[in-house]
């Protein structure tokens, strides 16, 4: 058998400097720790693994489900709980979960009011969630899917895979989850999610590359003062390599294309989300956030809400992304609604 010829390469063989036992079980092992840490919030459904809100299914309420490859924590598993996700479907590291995992999640959380799937726009995620949605609909469950594609680093076109879903995902999950908690129907939840997608734009950069456990070496190589601009969150190389420059330059290089893309205009009220890719310390993140606030003020934008922290990460990658969401009062109210998850709580 083939498995005998290719014993799984363990941590030592790979020379991995990570706090893990075995690259083959790293996702499950981490999920067990998550479940142990938050018994009040969530439970772990094993094989295929799905993280489910502790009190799911919530009868009569739209269930919001997201998922994707692991390694972006707290996205999505850290956002399971009242006011946000009913279930998160974690795939292998940086690899979409399979349709049966998504289908299992839908089965766990469907409370009879329909299920909203929030899917980051990557071919793998789109195809696997699509199949799951078909299977669930065949079971008589009403399923709506909203694709998140906010990354301005990727040129959009009908002839390409389209933009990636990055930072906006957290915002979409929060706002759709709040709408569901307030009793909105599945069509309305999907509309709101779609509105957030339409009004959000992101751009990221990396100072270092992540190392995927089963690969054992960094996903790309950078020079001592080189950064990847337009980085994704899967260790895929970015759009261009440039010298690092000052924090001021970094922030402007990220914000300029974001501001132009929607476009954001003088007088707009926005949510500014300053995200660490994982390995960037809080000191640098707040420093960049402060600059971003100043640059937005220069453009006549009013920052009404903020989110600062490592919420959309790429393992231990150092770097950051900036996401801007154009706000209106309804979105502000939904953003402010109570949320109780491992990673976001108010």
């Amino acid at each position: 058998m083939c498995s005998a010829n290719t014993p799984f390469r363990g941590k030592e063989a790979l020379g991995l400097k990570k706090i893990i036992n075995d690259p083959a079980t790293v996702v499950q092992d981490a999920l067990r720790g998550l479940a142990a840490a938050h018994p009040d919030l969530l439970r772990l459904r094993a094989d295929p693994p799905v993280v489910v809100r502790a009190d799911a299914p919530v009868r009569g309420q739209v269930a919001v489900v997201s998922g994707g490859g692991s390694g972006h924590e707290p996205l999505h598993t850290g956002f399971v709980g009242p006011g946000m996700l009913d279930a998160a479907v974690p795939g292998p590291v940086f690899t979409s979960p399979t349709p049966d995992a998504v289908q299992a999640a839908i089965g766990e959380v469907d409370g009879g009011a329909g299920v909203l799937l929030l899917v980051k726009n990557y071919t793998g995620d789109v195809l696997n969630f699509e199949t799951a949605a078909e299977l669930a609909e065949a079971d008589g469950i009403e399923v709506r899917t909203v694709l998140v594609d906010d990354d301005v680093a990727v040129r959009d076109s009908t002839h390409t895979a389209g933009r990636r879903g990055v930072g906006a995902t957290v915002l979409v999950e929060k706002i759709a989850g709040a709408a569901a908690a307030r009793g909105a129907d599945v069509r309305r939840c999907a509309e709101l999610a779609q509105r957030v997608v339409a009004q959000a734009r992101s751009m990221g950069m990396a100072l270092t590359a992540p190392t995927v456990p089963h690969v054992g070496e960094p996903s790309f190589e950078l020079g001592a003062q080189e950064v990847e601009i337009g980085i994704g969150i899967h260790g895929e190389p970015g759009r261009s390599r440039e010298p690092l420059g000052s924090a001021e330059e970094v922030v402007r290089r990220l914000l300029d294309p974001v501001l132009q893309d929607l476009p954001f205009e003088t007088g707009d009220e926005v949510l500014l989300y300053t995200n660490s890719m994982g390995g960037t310390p809080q000191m640098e993140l707040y420093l960049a956030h402060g600059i971003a606030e100043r640059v937005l003020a220069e453009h006549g934008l009013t920052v009404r809400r903020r989110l600062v922290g490592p919420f959309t990460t790429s393992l231990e990658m150092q770097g950051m992304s900036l996401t801007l969401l154009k706000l209106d009062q309804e979105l502000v109210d939904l953003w402010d609604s109570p949320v109780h998850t491992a990673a976001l709580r108010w």
Partner: protein
Amino acid sequence: MSCTADDVVAALRAGADVVAAHRGELVEMDREIGDADHGENMDRGFRAVMAKLDTSSPDTPAAALKLAATVLISSVGGASGPLYGTALLRAASAAGDAAELDGPAVAALLQSGLDGVVARGHAELGDKTMVDVLVPAAEAAGNAAEGGQDSAGVLRSAAQAAQEAAENTRPLVARKGRASYLGERSAGHVDPGARSTALLLGAFAESAGVRS
């Protein structure tokens, strides 16, 4: 010679072996223009197919193909899982309940598989994906079948075309899949899915050749 259920199972085993042997290479290729998991994904999927075949013995070519399709879909994840899964599902449908597949039948299977991938992933020729291998492979298979080749011969022609076609993805700029995010920087690398398709077709052809 025609192709029986056992021949399909043997081909799948050969596919599993070639994927396992090239796991690291496919990861490395995907690391260069993707997210470094294609070898891992394919290996996980084909191991799962092998595990399933330990406990079930499909009795038609279609049953064997469908088994592989569903296991791949439920174990690979990523873009390649649903795409290879759909290809095999469509091939299974095309095979119907035939106990043996002759040359034209194998060529028809390949064409159905290709159609499934295109229906699912919307990639066109030149987008730098597995489609760039499947199109010439299916065409070569069709020609070989028309030329009277048996199933092994058809697969051999497909595999030969595939080998070259995979290499031809190197200069292309990706327009689909993860490599497309790199834009111009994706040129200069062979597409990992194109490579795995060529490897699989090669393994299928060799398996058929040995058994025929």
